[in-house]
């Protein structure tokens, strides 16, 4: 069945189109996701490599729920 569908697709151009559509979807979703992230969260994440040891932290820092 799968073979039949593929063969009947002729030049298989649909693969290139579906690839492009999938990529645009992945790109848009990741871009929307990145731009909707709150600043506090982004700051906290980008500072993670700089802290090897955390002596004090608050519940809010851990959960990142507050905007």
């Amino acid at each position: 069945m799968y073979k039949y569908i593929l063969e009947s697709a002729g030049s298989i151009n649909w693969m290139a189109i579906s690839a492009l559509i999938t990529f645009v979807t992945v790109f848009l979703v990741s871009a929307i996701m990145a731009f909707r992230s709150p600043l506090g969260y982004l700051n906290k994440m980008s500072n993670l490599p700089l802290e090897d040891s955390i002596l004090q932290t608050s519940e809010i820092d851990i959960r990142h729920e507050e905007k």
Partner: protein
Amino acid sequence: MAQVETFYYDNAIVRKFAYATMLWAVVGMLVGLIAAFQLIWPELNLGIPYTSFGRIRPLHTNAAIFAFVGNGIYMGVYYSLQRLLKTRMFSNALSNIHFWGWQSIIVMAAVTLPLGITSAKEYAELEWPIDIAIALVWVVFGINMFGTILKRRENHMYVAIWFYIATWITVTVLHIGNNIEIPVSATKSYNIFAGVQDALVQWWYGHNAVAFFLTTPYLGLMYYFLPKAANRPVYSYRLSIIHFWALIFIYIWAGPHHLLYTSLPDWAQSLGTVFSVMLIAPSWGGMLNGLLTLRGAWDRVRQDPVLKFMVVAITAYGMATFEGPMLSIKSVNAISHFTDWTIGHVHIGTLGWNGFLTFGILYWLIPRLFNTQLYSGKLANAHFWIGTLGIAFYAIPLYWAGWAQSLMWKEFTPDGFLKYGNFLETVTQIMPMYYIRALGGTLYFAGTLVMVYNLIATIRQGSFIGDEVAEAPARVATDGAHKGEHWHRWIERRPMQMLVGAAIAILIGGIIEISPMVMIESNIPKIASVKPYTPLELHGRDLYIREGCLGCHSQMVRPFRSETERYGEYSKSGEYIYDRPFLWGSKRTGPDLHREGGKYPDSWHYNHMVDPQSMSPGSIMPAYPWLLRDEMDLGTLPKKIKVLTMLGTPYPEGFEDQAVADLKKQASEVAKRLRADGVEDDKLEKRDIVALIAYLQRLGTDIKPKAATN
């Protein structure tokens, strides 16, 4: 408020991998240097089979990729993972099994490749028992990494860890997919895919070995160690999110750009080109994110050798990822492919990106592990400049050589004949570039030795901190997404979901590209006159594989007039259906051999193997005296025929029992022709050379049967 816990980071495993990457850097580069000098002085292998170019070239590439860079990855991952997750590694035992297992694999590779035990698939040359060992050790690494993630104190996973997860799952898929093979013996196997299908699967693997072993883990290291060394956060965390998803999704599709103008169907070539060109966007996004992290800190780059190495590394990443998409455009690829341009391109990546980032990390890390200062900043600066000059002296001559040779291959006289009809003219022309390349390699190697000395002196003056104390609050377990929380941040707290997401992203490309090739027969039109190899030719083919001939000779005549004039009819996909593995090659240090059959008499090949320069003055091919000396080992021949029959090669029923007799019959015919031309050897029909000649004389003759009667 969560309770603050005290724990210890495991630095011992980081130190082990750091020592290993330093050791294998020296070994891998030394082998590469020997190979570079052999291209100037072919006799430098000293007449020993184990040191011949064809065998040590894969040793160099494997050592550089899996030993030097591989250990560099683990060093960085084991250091950063613990600190980003605020926990010790999951298991000391697994860490040590991983370390010693990986070093054992490297040693096995270092023994088997010079012995000629190879599956002939670039960057996947190791035979099946070692492939299984790699898979087991990789799983151990995976369990240890995911175990550490699960016992973390930090809820969210920093972007570096996403890159590590994507690396792990993709390498798993690639390694298994490209190594599905049926064993003949402990040292020989045949791949289940043949010809064009094998080529597509191999370059899906080969390209993504570059992508997911040399790039994504190193991007993870960049996102951790660059902010660390600069003591400032990454420029844009938003950009890193887009960088990650776009990069891993696109990368997986780009493999067919290694096969442009070959017998691969056009639709697959086009997909490879389109996605390769698109790759420039996420790649440069990542590069800019790295460089802009240093915004406002460029004064420190002038002083700090660590940052200097990192800046050049990231710049080299940008150069290589600009050049890669350009080389994937068909009209550019028509010039670059099979030339030294490719070699220059990959060395910008390995010497610049992987090498310099590893050196930067080592200079930053070793003093911290040993609680001391770097022994000599001056020596580190000297290393930086020697290394940078080394890269320039390595790559620029090869770009020059690539252009020069390609243009010479393609040049016609006004009368319509090839201006440089003798391939050797195009080799001797670029020899000065090979000299300068060897100088560049020597400089880079010398710089590495300076670094090793500097780091050993640093280690000797310091005191190792095996268990580094740290404190962090206990993790507050969270079930499900919180109210008002963005869904992606929920994924970031769920390593398994991240694993599945990354796996889906990379599988889409692989499945869409590869499955039609495997499932639709019309993609590879059959040619009635193409027959399976005879047992003698098969044995000769396996010798061709053993000697690594494909390191210098392609078997793919592209549909250009300059190639059909030089070599003959362009190659058809149907001609390769019995080729396990495919041997198209990716570099023409010597001429293409796909239409070699019937071009010269048997005795020409015999004498050429005795002394290539006597038949082709100026040739840089080494002599192969052992092929004239060694007798054929036919112990596994019946099993080979049996395995190939099982895989679909249409040998007659029960042919495995007649294979040896068939081989001897054909060998005596070849020997008779050789004797008629004056070759003297009582045991000629038993020598390996006879099988190799039979294979070379068969090449490309199936579609011109009359020419085969040499």
